[in-house]
């Protein structure tokens, strides 16, 4: 399983690095919000979920999709704006969803997914089949009322929900400490009567274990948990035609991207140390990821643009 986690993290990182290149080349459209550096959060959380569990995601959502098991061909086709994309080209990078695997959508609105996640968790609670929902959001979302309202209702109704705060230290260009007094986001949990747990978000095994405990609690009917994952956004907040200049200090970047803090390198070293992963197996894995991504680009480029005559299709359900 840890090897699969490593593969997922590498795929997520390479997917977003590729998306950046494709955007520079103007082959994909719109905005790209890279998840590079934060892979352990999506993979640590989703590896503790079942296919029938649900997630909601954010504007920085490619990693959540991949970790939940989405098809990278259809993700890539969506970035290309093609008809075989997950949303038939109607959503793009910020609105990928795959309801068949319980991925209820990325969301372009900070904190917009939290109430929706509560609704999915309410549905699961009523169904009574033990499904849970994990709700991803950034540190910036803690400034929104929807965050506070959702924590309170989820706790009140004991919803089977895991609130996953990806504290990547920045909301766009603003450092967390410039917009919040309290650094430990888990402390919000106490005010609403649910457990709050802070984990090293660059340690995929720690995220996985913390999620497992939260999932167990949720499945057992004991309600939600707030999981505060400390991580770091390696790259820019968002790019359109070109990546914006880096404004953060080189020292800060170096401290977070060092091998002993990089989530992927840490798991590689851990697995190598355990003798589970050889140098050549890692090389093969990376080659396979590259091959899969090349295939995804080929799939996307072979897919046609949507026909403008279908502009009104999907507006209202029959």
């Amino acid at each position: 399983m840890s090897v699969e986690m490593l593969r997922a993290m590498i795929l997520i990182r390479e997917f977003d690095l590729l998306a950046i290149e494709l955007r520079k080349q103007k082959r994909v459209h719109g905005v790209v919000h890279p998840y590079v550096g934060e892979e352990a959060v999506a993979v640590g959380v989703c590896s503790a979920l079942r296919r029938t569990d649900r997630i909601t995601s954010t504007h920085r959502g490619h990693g959540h999709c991949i970790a939940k098991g989405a098809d990278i061909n259809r993700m890539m086709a969506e970035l290309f704006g093609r008809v075989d994309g997950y949303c038939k080209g109607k959503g793009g990078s910020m609105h990928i969803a795959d309801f068949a695997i319980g991925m209820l959508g990325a969301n372009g609105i900070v904190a917009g997914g939290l109430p929706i996640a509560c609704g999915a968790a309410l549905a699961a609670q009523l169904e009574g089949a033990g499904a849970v929902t994990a709700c991803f959001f950034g540190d910036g979302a803690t400034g929104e009322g929807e965050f506070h309202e959702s924590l309170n209702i989820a706790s009140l109704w004991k919803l089977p929900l895991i609130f996953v705060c990806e504290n990547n230290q920045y909301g766009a260009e603003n450092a967390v400490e410039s917009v919040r007094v309290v650094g430990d986001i888990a402390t919000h949990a106490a005010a609403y009567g649910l457990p709050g747990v802070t984990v090293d978000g660059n340690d995929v095994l720690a995220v996985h274990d913390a999620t497992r405990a939260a999932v167990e609690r949720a499945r057992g009917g004991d309600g939600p948990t707030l999981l505060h994952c400390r991580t770091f956004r390696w790259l820019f907040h968002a790019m359109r035609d070109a990546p914006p200049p880096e404004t953060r200090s080189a020292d800060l970047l170096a401290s977070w991207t060092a091998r002993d803090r990089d989530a992927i390198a840490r798991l590689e070293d851990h697995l190598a140390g355990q003798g589970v992963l050889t140098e050549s197996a890692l090389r093969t894995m990376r080659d396979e990821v590259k091959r899969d991504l090349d295939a995804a680009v080929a799939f996307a480029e072979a897919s046609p643009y949507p026909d403008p005559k279908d502009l009104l299709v999907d507006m209202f359900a029959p």
Partner: protein
Amino acid sequence: MREISFTQALDEAMLEEMERDARVITFATRRATALERTFGGKRVRFTPISEAAFTGIGLGAAGSGYRPVVHWGMVTFSFVAMDQIVNQASKIRYMFGGQADFPVTYRCTTGGGAQIAAQHSQSPYSMFMHLAGLKIVLPATPADAKGLLKSSIRDNNPVIFFECSRLAAVTGPVPDGDVTVPLGVAEVKRAGRDVTVVGLAYYVREALAVAEALAREGISVEVIDPRTLVPLDVAAIRASVRKTGRLVVVDEAPATCSAASEIIAVVTEDPETFRALKAPAQRVCAAPVPVPFSPPLEKAALPDQARIEAAIRRVL
């Protein structure tokens, strides 16, 4: 036929739909005691005063297999949930390429005339019509209220269901049993030859009263109730105007970018209907002010029978 009030009709619709389909759940900040007694606290919940959260909860539960009916209380309170309405509910199906349906009904009371001043006297349906992606329902009679609420709950899309406060206690004939009224079908509430009056909610009654009075003078007024604003029964309204050649639209929302404006636009942009017009179309709407408190001021702000009659006389 038995007569019941608008409110009783809505209560019946809720009861029958919850009985009919176990996937119908409901929540509001106010306790629905009767429903709770019948269906239990799992399906009938009261919530903290957290409109953004429970508006989104309705949407999320709808996308996960349930049919929530969410009551905002007054439409006024929906404005703190604008993200969930505007950014989420209205866009979620199309934006995701039609992957899932979101059968959620948002109920709210609406309108002025009760001396509760600006914040509690709003008629903002055209704000929501503008979004594309929400169905907008605005019944004017108890029978339509019941039949349309049933259809809204069964509809597979987000619906905003407006309940005009001044109609709450109004009684009217309501058929027994499971009678639905389809969304998107207007009703001719009174047939006439000389002028078409399209009324919304409370102003259907007022238009009918004016029509009755003018009939004594030999003026024949056709009163049309669109019943739903999205989808709007454009064909029925155009057909009426082609017959009468004159159009007056009455609503208690201010005229700017209103449902009344939209109705006049769909009439005048149709060449055949435009050619049939014998007079400029008229809007009888609220003054462009926040609804004031003091009774004479509020009366001056909202449409009334005299203004409807004056508009009809202007186009004749």
